[in-house]
């Protein structure tokens, strides 16, 4: 599924920032809040579901080639981080769902 389709298909996810490379493939959901583990284990093109919302989350997403960040549990970036996300062209969505339920929903859609 392309990132463009991904953004449009979920009513449950609120679009926070529409980034660049919207024709890229979203491969699978990935869950982790510990950045060092996410850094070493995140698959390319991941839809990264996390509650860790700081500027380092953006760096990790960008360096590991995640397709997008999905903030669960109603978490949100502060203004400075959002500016950075816009600058880096990183797509961000958010949800009030818990991490597991959010990732499961994505998994079902990507594999359904």
């Amino acid at each position, binding site marked *: 599924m392309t990132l463009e389709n991904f953004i449009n298909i979920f009513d449950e996810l609120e679009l926070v920032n529409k980034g660049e490379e919207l024709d890229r493939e979203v491969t699978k959901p990935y869950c982790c809040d*510990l950045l*060092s583990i996410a*850094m*070493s284990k995140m698959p*390319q093109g991941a839809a990264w579901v996390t509650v860790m919302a700081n500027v*380092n989350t953006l*760096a990790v997403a960008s360096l590991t080639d995640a397709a997008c960040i999905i903030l669960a549990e109603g978490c949100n970036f502060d203004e400075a981080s959002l500016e950075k996300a816009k600058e880096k062209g990183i797509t961000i969505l958010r949800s009030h769902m818990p991490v597991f339920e959010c990732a499961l929903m994505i998994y079902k859609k990507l594999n359904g």
Partner: protein
Amino acid sequence: MNERITLKYDVHCDDFTRAGEASSSVKRKLKLMGVNPDVIRKVAIALYEGEINMVIHSYGGTIEVIISPSVIEMILRDTGPGIKDIELAMQAGYSTAPDNIRSLGFGAGMGLPNIKKYTDDLKIESEMGIGTTLRMLVYIPLEE
């Protein structure tokens, strides 16, 4: 790509908003140069972990990245407290990072182990009260 390219960056201690800028910049440049994506990923991860280590533990330092056709060399030099026991620091899970660092999502004791995992060669020199230098190599495989 035949020539050697050297990139230099400054890293400032405790500046988490700018941590990752060197790694991102190197990643972008390697992508533009058409370097193998697996190589780019290894370099980006190792460099970011090194950069974060400098931000957390050192008083600041420099990163030098030398890109040549067959290898990428990264030299991270910092002034700082140094690493007391390098063997211990290399163990996954061992960390001396304070709680405020952990709340940012770091400090899991994965930094040096990740660097080791994603580089083809790693040398650490550290002197207590002076600083630490990491030299890491990532080889670029010949295109088939």
